[in-house]
């Protein structure tokens, strides 16, 4: 700080060009913080880091590779769901039916495999096409019939959760293609200088399962790829530009010639697609198709929360997919950290709610600092 004030050449620290500036002191942590805050995702990055540091300091096992693997299912599916939801939220709309798509997709996938005999990959494709059709229907009712999106998607949420129960008769079944095969392998061990061979059991899952959610890092890879692609779509394509334009000024966008209805339908379609995909991933990962609407609803709310915490406005006009990923990571870290700290299961939900409020307050505050900061620069 003091050194920055002394250097006359650097009149505007916020416009810092980096590179050749030499301070007598280290390039202050404050400057790094300023840079970070200047990002839309900055505030949630800071909040997530603080949360992670807290748990790392208070538990011995948080910062371990094994825990990272535990953490993955806590956030990767939410990151994918939130990525799709962000596209709807930027429009200033909301899609509650992702809970139903999440629930319905694996059941349809199971039926296509068991009753129709479609095969695994074609089954996934047909399932996702059906999800997209439902998304397009949501978009049609919101954009063309002009029913409020909360109401529209609440209706499709109920319809398809209901349909999921009807089709499945409320009974859990084994996910097709996710069966675990156990084989015996001869493994050589050296014991006291003698080599002995022992038969050991090893569990395998098929390639299909490995790719579609069963592999340890499968969902993480999908999440990162989907988030990156959708962030590029949002920032660097016409589609993204029009999405922001509609959320910011719907009438203005249509006056400028943006085909508002088409873009809205497309975004709802995308959102339903990501939800269906996550539904299949989770069914493959757990090995069972669970017709459990309560669980699906919780997942829906956490996905919306991840988007909002990540810096996407529920009122539309502004949002970030990468932020949604970090928002999901925050929720994952929180959930995992609370488990590691040995918090009583009954208290967990309470703490989760509390932490979300605290995080959002910090988020809003940091966001205000950011805007003030950019505004003065």
């Amino acid at each position, binding site marked *: 700080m003091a050194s920055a004030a002394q250097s006359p050449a650097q009149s505007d620290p916020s416009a810092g060009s980096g590179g050749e500036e030499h301070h007598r002191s280290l390039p202050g942590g404050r400057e790094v913080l300023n840079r970070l805050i200047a990002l839309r995702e900055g505030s949630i990055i800071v909040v997530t880091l603080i949360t992670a540091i807290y748990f790392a300091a208070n538990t011995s096992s948080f910062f371990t590779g094994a825990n990272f693997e535990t953490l993955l299912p806590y956030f990767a599916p939410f990151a994918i769901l939130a990525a799709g939801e962000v596209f709807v939220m930027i429009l200033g709309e909301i899609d509650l039916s992702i809970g139903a798509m999440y629930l319905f997709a694996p059941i349809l996938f199971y039926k296509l495999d068991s009753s129709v005999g479609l095969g695994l990959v074609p089954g996934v494709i047909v399932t996702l096409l059906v999800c997209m059709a439902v998304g397009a229907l949501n978009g049609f009712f919101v954009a063309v019939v002009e029913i409020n999106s909360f109401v529209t998607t609440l209706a499709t949420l109920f319809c398809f959760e209901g349909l999921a129960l009807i089709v499945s008769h409320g009974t859990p079944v084994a996910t097709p293609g996710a069966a675990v095969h156990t084989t015996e392998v001869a493994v050589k061990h050296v014991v006291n200088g003698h080599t002995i061979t022992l038969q050991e059991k090893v569990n395998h899952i098929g390639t299909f399962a490995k790719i579609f959610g069963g592999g340890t890092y499968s969902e993480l890879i999908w999440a990162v790829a989907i988030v990156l692609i959708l962030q*590029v779509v949002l920032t*660097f*394509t*016409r589609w993204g*530009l029009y999405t*922001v*334009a509609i*959320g*910011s*000024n719907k*009438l*203005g*966008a*249509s*006056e*400028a*010639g*943006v*085909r508002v209805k088409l873009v809205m339908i497309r975004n709802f379609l995308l959102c339903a697609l990501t939800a269906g995909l996550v539904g299949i991933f989770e069914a493959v990962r757990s090995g069972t198709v669970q017709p459990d609407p309560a669980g699906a609803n919780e997942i829906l709310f956490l996905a919306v929360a991840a988007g909002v915490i990540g810096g996407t406005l529920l009122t539309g*006009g*502004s949002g970030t997919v990468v932020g949604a990923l970090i928002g999901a990571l925050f929720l994952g870290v929180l959930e995992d950290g609370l488990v590691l700290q040995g918090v009583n299961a009954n208290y967990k939900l309470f703490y989760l709610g509390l932490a979300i409020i605290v995080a959002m307050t910090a988020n809003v505050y940091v966001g205000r600092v950011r805007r003030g900061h950019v*505004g003065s620069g």
Partner: protein
Amino acid sequence: MSEVADAQAPQTGVVGPSSAPDDVLRVEHIAKRFGPVTALRDVNLHLKKGEVLGLLGDNGAGKSTLIKIICGFQKQDAGKMFIHGELYEPRSVDDARAHGIETVYQDLALIDELSVYHNLFLRKERVHHPIPLLANRQMKREARTALDEIGINIPRIDVAVARLSGGQRQAIAVARTVNSDADIILLDEPLAAMGAKEGAQILDLVARLKAEGKVSIIMILHNYVHVLEACDRVSMIQEGMIALDKPTAETSVEELTDIVVNEYRRAREAAHVAEAAAAKGTANGGAAG
């Protein structure tokens, strides 16, 4: 083409715009209702190449509705439009744009959250090939050049337009239409929300476009001094019809004001008469009851 031009000569007294074969745009017997409200009754209008036409009229006279019909945002209930003598039936704003019509709306149609240059290029984005990602650097460069050419001073073009002043926003909206290959530009109150200096900039710009003679302009204005200064001809809409159509050289601020004031008086008298009749009606009704 000339047959079409001669086909329908409007016969409503002074209202008749003298159609000519060199009209770039002709509007005939346009009518538009919004439920019980008649916005346009029977509007005839024509625009010559390189001409600046001032569209006048009181609030609610139907000026903005007419603009929105011409630019393809709304569809008329009756009447026809012609561009270069050929029937013109825009299906959308994009379609109108393909016919060479660009518009600055009264509400500006700017997107607050988007940057200045994204607003300038909305629906005309420059993209890379073969992967159609936005060519932001190219758009920034072209936006800067365009704004410099027009003489509009915006310090930073990568900030969101939400951060600009009212006048700057208006300037961006006008620049957006000028920065195109349009041959007909529609300006709905381009001087609203502008300071005197910014307003003068826009009028200078219009004068320069007029001097170049490539585009034809229809401009809604409220200030008659500006109208006489910037326009070649004025058309005044009253109660959904063209009440006056004259070259600016043949009219004056006084005449324009008179028409509006007379109209106002007439309307007030009519209202009085109606009120009196209503009162009488009630009195009679009361007596009868």
